């Protein structure tokens, strides 16, 4: 039996993730997802003033800094029971949606679909269309995504002064009101992107597309007109299904969502009890039931991570993040292994849509399960929903031109206590857990979406979601494992993949 190890580096920009895969006769028999970057923000924040988190945590990521800021401010508002006006919630939501839309469009059309142009598919009927649409820098959709995705975060710059790494959310609200100028400028940016999305991505009107409610309706729509089949989402769907991405890459059946976007109509309620526009929950993969989400059920394990060991799992309020690099042990990553109800779970747009009860995604899931194509499709479906929601949010802001954007807290400082902020970032469930003692941060624990998905094995030896989604996969050519690229990219790790083969020393680049 031929056994070999493949090492896959997943970019050095935002994620710093590698995969090590063991292949036996071209079949993946073991997988290790390696977080090669020690983040260290938990230590940086220790003994600092609580509000320092609003400046420091948006630096955790160059893609989802808005989500980090939102989680940080919610945690402080939770501790201080600090009220926020509806306008501030709308501005926060608008910016968070803009950030997610950019990330989703780039992930889809600058990274995921580029793999359809791989020479392996040269004899497939779709190949010429794939190149015309998705070839990097040449294909119409790739070029369009590059041009249009970069403007949407200008909305964040309007309200936050800059993007990325902005700090405009404060306990009690945001720093800038929704002036009519900001609203008009935001609408102009949104309109331009929406027009391109309708023309190039869905080939139809946004509202009409969002009205599709079931798998049958979707597949009828797909073949009803050439414009539908030739839209980016049509091509992506037909190509994915032609090569079987709807039958692969499932991973764990359990899913969580923290719920997305605080409901401005529920502004009078303090987090974490405030309602969300998209619901929170836990999809129990064993029963198929959606159960209420309870953050107390979260634990993190470090059995296979480079941290000082402790028994079993710990809730973030008892969390400990003390680095202990042991490169020659069976520990293999800087990621902890988060678990919910002691189960391996996944998070992201597929989980969010299913838990929220979005009918089309749910119908497709019931028909075929949580496969690689559906995971990617759910991400693009979310873009459509968010473009619609952003317009609605801007309309609401415009309807109340002089509404306050800030309620100054009674107390200047955040009191001692503990709290958490849970948000939905582009890649899924993001949480900050904070404890304040004697006026300074005594514990800060961040659990990112990628920690959930890229989790290593836990104390009981169970693989994380990405790892398990690859185990059992057969690749045609271990020297050029494009199948692995499809599945890994459907999980939305950051940016490009470079594949190294350790046994031959040969290096292969999977370049988008």
């Amino acid at each position, binding site marked *: 039996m031929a056994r070999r190890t493949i090492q896959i580096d997943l970019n*050095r920009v935002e994620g710093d993730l590698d995969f090590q895969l063991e292949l036996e006769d071209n079949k993946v028999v073991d997988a290790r997802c390696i977080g*090669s970057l020690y983040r260290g923000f938990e230590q940086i924040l220790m003994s600092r003033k609580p509000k320092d988190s609003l400046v420091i945590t948006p630096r955790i990521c160059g893609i989802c800094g808005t989500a980090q800021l939102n989680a940080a401010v919610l945690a402080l508002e939770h501790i201080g029971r600090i009220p926020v006006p509806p306008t501030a919630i709308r501005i926060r939501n608008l910016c968070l949606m803009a950030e997610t839309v950019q990330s989703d469009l780039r992930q889809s059309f600058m990274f995921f679909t580029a793999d359809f142009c791989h020479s392996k598919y040269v004899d497939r009927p779709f190949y010429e269309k794939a190149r015309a649409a998705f070839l990097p*820098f040449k294909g119409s959709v790739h070029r369009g995504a590059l*041009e249009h995705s970069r403007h949407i975060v200008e909305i964040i710059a309007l309200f936050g002064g800059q993007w990325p790494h902005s700090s405009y959310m404060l306990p009690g609200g945001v720093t800038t009101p929704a002036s009519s100028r900001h609203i008009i400028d935001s609408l102009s940016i949104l309109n331009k992107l929406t027009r391109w999305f309708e023309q190039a991505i869905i080939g139809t009107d946004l509202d009409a597309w969002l009205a599709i409610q079931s798998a049958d309706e979707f597949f009828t729509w797909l073949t009803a007109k050439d414009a539908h089949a030739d839209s980016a989402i049509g091509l992506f769907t037909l190509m994915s299904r032609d090569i079987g991405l709807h039958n692969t890459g499932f991973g764990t059946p359990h899913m969580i969502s923290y719920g997305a976007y605080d409901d401005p109509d529920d502004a009078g309620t303090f987090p974490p009890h405030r309602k969300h526009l998209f619901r929170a929950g836990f999809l129990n993969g064993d029963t198929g039931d959606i159960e209420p989400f309870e953050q107390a059920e979260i634990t993190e394990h470090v059995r296979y991570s480079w941290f000082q060991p402790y028994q079993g799992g710990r809730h973030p309020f008892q969390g400990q993040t003390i680095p202990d690099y042991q490169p020659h042990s069976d520990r293999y990553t800087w990621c902890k292994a988060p678990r919910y109800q002691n189960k391996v779970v996944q998070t992201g747009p597929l989980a969010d849509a299913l838990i929220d009860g979005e009918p089309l995604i749910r119908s497709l899931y019931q028909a075929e399960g949580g496969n690689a194509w559906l995971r990617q499709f759910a991400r693009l479906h979310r873009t459509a929903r968010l473009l619609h929601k952003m317009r609605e949010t801007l309309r609401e802001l415009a309807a109340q031109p002089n509404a306050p954007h800030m309620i100054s807290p009674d107390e200047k400082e955040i009191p001692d206590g503990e709290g958490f902020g849970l948000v939905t970032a582009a890649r899924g469930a993001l949480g900050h857990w904070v404890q304040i003692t004697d006026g300074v941060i005594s514990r800060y624990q961040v659990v990112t979406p990628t920690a959930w998905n890229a989790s290593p094995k836990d104390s009981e030896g169970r693989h994380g979601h990405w790892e398990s989604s690859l185990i059992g996969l057969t690749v045609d050519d271990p020297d050029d494992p494009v199948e692995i690229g499809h599945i890994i990219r459907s999980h939305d790790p950051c940016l*490009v993949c470079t594949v190294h083969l350790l046994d031959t020393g040969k290096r292969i680049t999977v370049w988008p």
Partner: protein
Amino acid sequence: MGTLHIVCFGNELHGDDGFGIRVYAQLCRSTWTKDVEVFNAGIAGLNALRFLEDCSQAILVDALANFGNVGEVFLLRPEDLADRPEQLTGHGLGIPYLLEALKVIREPQPDILIVGVEIAAVNPFSPGLSDETEHAIPKTVQLIRGLLSE
């Protein structure tokens, strides 16, 4: 002459990959005329496109691999990178990718020059440059000054 942007790339935490950022620090110690702006692009990836807008010329500074001897300073044009997209080190989306993206979003293109040094090694999480790369910093700054006075 229009505006000129000097855009420095690199990651100071990864050994010689920090070369561009050290050059940036050095450039910031000098005063420049109003039509010159210096930027630290770090590992901004595609977000660095912003630094290439609103300028008629740009000088990009980064670490290089497989161009020559360690410590050697090179002056390159974008076409010199065209056939070797993976040669620049350190950043998942490197300068070749950025330049391709720039062609899509900007017309006409700014005049672009790339100034780089052949580095010894990218050592993850080992701040500090090798001696050869360190010695290349003054040469690089001098080269950039020379380009500006042309």
